[in-house]
């Protein structure tokens, strides 16, 4: 069995690159882009199909009127009708059509030791806490960027509310379901695809550049132009955690925390008021700068704390 000590998390446990792509000596950068695109094609098509199927199941037997007097009324009705099916579609398609194909690609193209290739085998609590803390400190800045574009574009409130419906919960049961769909599922599936596979594979030839390339791909993949910059920043941040820690878990924790704050901010009472006021708090410009300074300090701590992982 051919092994490459430089490829391992731990030199004492060498990783076997025994997949078909590796044995043929093909380019790892090409594998990263191709793998992402294949999973992307499967995922987006499957999500649309699964969404429609669950919508049909959901509406079977009872009539749902999607007609409204105005375009906004129609859009609201459509969003409300599609909300439930879309959540199921996201949950099912992320696991079946994003995670499974990624694992298949890793196993067949790269290494039978999938967990080791994806860096699923190293767990450090301080690194996870640090990564989550940095993400919390970056959140106000990302919110600020998002709000900046929304303000410049003059997007009306009612349209923003419609857009937020997918992530809004009105009961504790709905909140728990959203925590699974919006926080846990992407933290596992997207991190394994983007950091575990794409960045990991690009890293082998591009080193640190892989963090930025994967961050941009992560931003583009979400197809939300207004949030592109915030998503790229988050992608780069998660990539940095992955790169420095040689483990996928800090990035997963950071991703989970980021989405968790968004979901908790949109947890509402039945009369449409925020249930947890603290998560809707918008800091001033000075507050954003202060939070970013703390994020910088924590990142530096993270950098030095993970120095022992450097090969």
């Amino acid at each position, binding site marked *: 069995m*051919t092994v*490459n000590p*430089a*490829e391992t998390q731990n030199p004492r446990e060498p990783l076997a*690159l*025994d997949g*078909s*792509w*590796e*044995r*043929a*000596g*093909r*380019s*790892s*950068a*090409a*594998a990263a*882009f*191709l793998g992402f*695109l*294949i999973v*992307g*094609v499967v995922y*987006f*098509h499957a999500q649309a199909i699964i969404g429609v199927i669950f919508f049909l199941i959901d509406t079977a037997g009872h009539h749902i009127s999607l007609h409204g007097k*105005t*375009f*906004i*009324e129609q859009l609201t009705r459509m969003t409300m009708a599609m909300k439930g099916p879309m959540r199921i579609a996201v949950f099912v398609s992320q696991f079946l059509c994003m995670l499974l194909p990624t694992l298949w690609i890793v196993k067949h*193209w790269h290494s039978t030791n999938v967990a080791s290739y994806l860096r699923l085998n190293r767990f450090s609590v301080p690194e996870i806490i640090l990564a989550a803390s940095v993400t919390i400190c970056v959140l106000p800045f990302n919110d600020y960027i998002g709000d900046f574009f929304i303000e*410049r*574009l*003059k*997007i*009306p*409130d*009612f*349209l923003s509310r419609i857009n937020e419906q997918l992530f809004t919960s009105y009961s504790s049961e709905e909140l728990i379901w959203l925590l699974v769909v919006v926080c846990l599922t992407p933290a596992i599936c997207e991190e394994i695809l983007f950091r575990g596979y794409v960045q990991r594979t690009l890293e*082998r*030839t591009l080193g640190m550049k892989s963090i930025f390339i994967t961050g941009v791909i992560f931003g*583009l*993949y979400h*197809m939300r*132009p*207004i949030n*592109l910059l915030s998503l790229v920043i988050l992608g780069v941040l998660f990539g940095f955690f992955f790169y420095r820690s040689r483990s996928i878990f800090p990035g997963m924790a950071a991703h989970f925390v980021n989405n968790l704050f968004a979901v908790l901010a949109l947890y509402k009472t039945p009369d449409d008021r925020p249930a947890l006021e603290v998560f809707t708090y918008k800091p001033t410009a000075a507050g954003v700068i202060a939070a970013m300074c703390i994020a910088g300090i924590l990142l530096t701590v993270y950098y030095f704390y993970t120095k022992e992982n450097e090969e």
Partner: protein
Amino acid sequence: MSKQIVPMELSDIFEKTFTLIGKTFFRNLIIALLFLGLPLILMAIAADDFSSSIADLQETIKNAHGESIFDVFISMLETLSFFGAASLLLMLGSLLAEIAISVVVSEELMSYSISVTDAIDETFSGRWLHGIGQALLKIAIVAGAAIIVIIAAVMLAVVSKLLMVLFVLICCIGLVPLMLNVFLKWYFSLTAVAVDDMTAVESLRGSWDLVTGYWWRTFGILFLFSLIMQLVITIVSLPITFGSMWDAYREYFTILGKTGGKIDPVTMKNLEASFGPGISIGTGVSALLTLLIAPVYTVVMYFDLRARSQAPAQSYSTPALQDPSSIDFDRM
């Protein structure tokens, strides 16, 4: 030193395509911008004029009498002609750029590096005429077939309308797979012109011969590539198109906010008129990305099919496999 291209596995085709896109990206981008720059600017102006004139026409039909409608209609025809000319120029530019890019990619595949100027020289050394020729031949054959069907349908209509309807129905059902078959077999004709400097007729025949026997394989790979390309174009062009339509969107959202979502049709039509340039930029980015991807995989597949047709008895199961012990892991 040039290398011998052997038949490839699916993974080899994908890997070579991605590697070649990376290696030739900037040269191909320059070529694409050189050939598409002017047509795209003209298209943007034409699309702007066209969307404005549609809004004018709708407004005039609603409010004015015959003469004004006639004037607007004439002005719209002028805009349409301009739009048509710009589209034609864009098609011609795309064809020339595809030839030049195919030349760059094919040389790179054979381990030679060719400059942009050399690729353009090669394009204008006669290939461009053959390229236009093969395109015209394809159009003529399709148009000819369509004319024959129409004449036959008209003749049948004289005898019986039911017969004509049946004939048209059978033609439609039969023509779709026939056209798909024919177009797939001619898919590599422009690549044959660019890579092997074939004449128009030779390229159609050459492409037909290459695909024969590998139709389903070619269809499957091209289908996969088209899905992948569609995803790339969508995720890359979406923020660019959004950015280019920023002002139009802001105006739209402002009105939406003021009216609570009840925009009157006239305001909406005026808004639509300002979408033209943004849509053109989106179309331009899509055209550019298509040019940077499609010729690359077409050339790789062309070489694969050519290798297969030259060595039919060879086993293609593991042509590029290396002995694992010989893999240089230092480069990974």
